[in-house]
């Protein structure tokens, strides 16, 4: 029997060099620490650990 090979990528996940993680498309973000759940369509998540607005990037990585 054939596999279900019709799964289409639902979101684009892009690791921006020396910057955040960009996610766009059909996704649900659950933030366990701040207890939030939403599906905003597009986000930039901090990867440097320095943002003051976690989990989002606030450009602190440029400093």
């Amino acid at each position: 029997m054939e596999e279900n090979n019709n799964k289409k990528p639902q979101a684009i996940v892009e690791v921006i060099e020396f910057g955040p993680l960009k996610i766009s498309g059909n996704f649900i973000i659950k933030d366990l620490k701040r207890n939030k759940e939403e599906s905003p369509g597009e986000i930039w998540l901090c990867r440097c650990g320095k943002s003051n607005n976690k989990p989002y990037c606030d450009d602190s990585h440029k400093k």
Partner: protein
Amino acid sequence: MEKDENHFSGGKRYRNKDITVYWKPSACVHASYCYRELIEVFDPSRRPWVDMEGASTEKIIEVVNLCPTDALAWKWNDEEKNQDVRADQYNHIKFRRPGLMQDKNSVIEETPVSVKVMIDGPVVLKGDFELTYGTTKKVVSDGMISICRCGVSDHQPFCDGRHRKTGFNG
């Protein structure tokens, strides 16, 4: 919003978790059996006019089988089940529109990707998505990855567990 996947050559398709219903407007003679029987699902005044969540799968099959033309046809999303459908299912695609037996495309999973921001840890992505980092671009299918959020992983962009040692707070 209507998605493009609902269009296929010669009409539209609608699905719930069990079945896919095909509609071929050019064949519809508006005999109206479908909406007289099941307005919850087939409502010509609504867009899209077919609402697959409006009734049970059994009921939808029953009403699709009433259509006197090949305007409406149906099939199981589970391909194996389509093989042994019996002839009393008049409007199953096997009898009504055999050409559609090839239409594997009708099982389209659109489960949103799960993005979980772990407490003081990485972000865990689960599902079907496209991932790019550096010069790498890949399609992750029903997979799971953890991206480092603390900035200290030695295995960037992935989490290697170091956030625990450095006491990352995020």
